[in-house]
């Protein structure tokens, strides 16, 4: 059974960790073969949406911004109605789409997406934020379906130990994947794009059902594709 709607991938993480740049890279990598849309959650400006439109990676009408009244974590977890409306409106206006990336406003380590908004989610941290962040943990680090450790090219300049970050993160995350990334070295974010393509295959095979590991769903009896 084909999926009736696009796969929704949440992209969260602290301010400045590179969420928008990662999304731009993913659009570059994926938009030739897939119909991609983006919903950004800006905190004060429409900066993120404008940045993405300016990169020219997607037609402008495939990128929409929502205002979240200073509450980025609320908009992705506790009251997701604004984002659900935006995603569905986007699909109605320019759809059908294969993939919608929902970018959270930059927030703290506890901000994760509700499984009712994002089928799967990526949490993005960077080496410049301090290499003790994976050890500190929190829902984003521990339970996101994919953890990206970004800006690895900067590690020597900020005194961060990438190997230790990966090993701390892996310990926190059981079997869930961790990817180290430098968009300077890999402008198409190929490893992350490949991970998303795998999620899309699983989503299509399951007829539009994926259980994000963040939901805490641990049943393996429904025959659905799982991402954990």
């Amino acid at each position, binding site marked *: 059974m084909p999926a009736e709607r696009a796969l929704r991938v949440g992209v969260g993480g602290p301010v400045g960790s590179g969420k928008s740049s990662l999304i731009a890279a993913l659009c570059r990598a994926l938009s030739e073969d897939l119909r991609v849309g983006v919903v950004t959650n800006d905190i*004060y400006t429409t900066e993120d949406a404008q940045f993405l439109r300016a990169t020219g990676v997607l037609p402008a009408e495939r990128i929409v911004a929502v*205002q979240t*009244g*200073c*509450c980025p974590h*609320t908009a992705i977890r*506790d*009251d997701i*109605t604004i984002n659900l409306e935006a995603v569905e409106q986007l699909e109605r206006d320019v759809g059908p789409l294969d993939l919608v990336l929902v970018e959270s406003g930059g927030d703290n380590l506890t901000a994760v997406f509700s499984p009712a908004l994002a089928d799967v989610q990526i949490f993005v941290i960077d080496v410049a934020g301090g290499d003790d962040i994976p050890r500190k943990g929190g829902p984003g680090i521990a339970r996101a379906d994919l953890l990206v450790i970004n800006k690895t090219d900067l590690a020597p300049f900020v005194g961060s130990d990438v190997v230790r970050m990966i090993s701390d993160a892996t310990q926190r995350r059981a079997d869930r994947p961790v990817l180290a990334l430098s968009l300077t070295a890999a402008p198409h974010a190929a490893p992350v794009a490949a991970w998303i393509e795998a999620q899309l295959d699983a989503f299509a095979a399951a007829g539009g059902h994926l259980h994000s590991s963040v939901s805490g769903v641990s049943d393996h009896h429904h025959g659905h594709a799982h991402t954990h």
Partner: protein
Amino acid sequence: MLLADSRFPAGGYAHSLGLEQAVSDALGVEGVAGFIDARLRLVARADAGLSVAARRAAADGSDVPVALAELDDEHAARCPSPVLREIARRLGAQLLRTAATAWPSPLLDGYRAASTTTPRPIALGVVGAAAGLDDRAVATVALYDDAATVASAALKLLGLDPAESARWVAELAPEIDAAARAISADERPVGEQEPPAAVGLELAASTHALRTERFFAS
């Protein structure tokens, strides 16, 4: 109580109902209580009248879709600002989405499917009917929610003691209660009731929508 609780997930936290623009136009902390009161008298009261009319139409049972479609049009006729009409549509859609899970009913599903505009005041009346509220409760929720939304946005826009913004709403309780009684006792069709009368807010909404730097969606 659930419907009036800011923790009820219907997207209201992203709106300041005109306060953000008023603050950029030099409204200070001392003016917010007056702003809330003016909204109550000039906007929220008329909207609450629509909500009560929608509750009655929804609970009446005969020709519900037609009656609600007429009320949708009535809202559009009373809301000349395209920006505010769009905001009302979005807030209504968000409320209906959450309510459809909280109080599942054919009434809510029917209105969600039939209405293209889902203005929040009409949506609130339909949700009130689905949740078993009476006219006075619907009017109280409509008025309280308007005041509390602005008061809560004020905390983020202005340096302020949170207890102070709670006091603003608390002090309006007698006025909200009296207005809710009057609205629920009003048997006139909405077309004969006083329409909203806040041209300044309508104009300011267009200015706000064009700004690139803002916290709130309205």
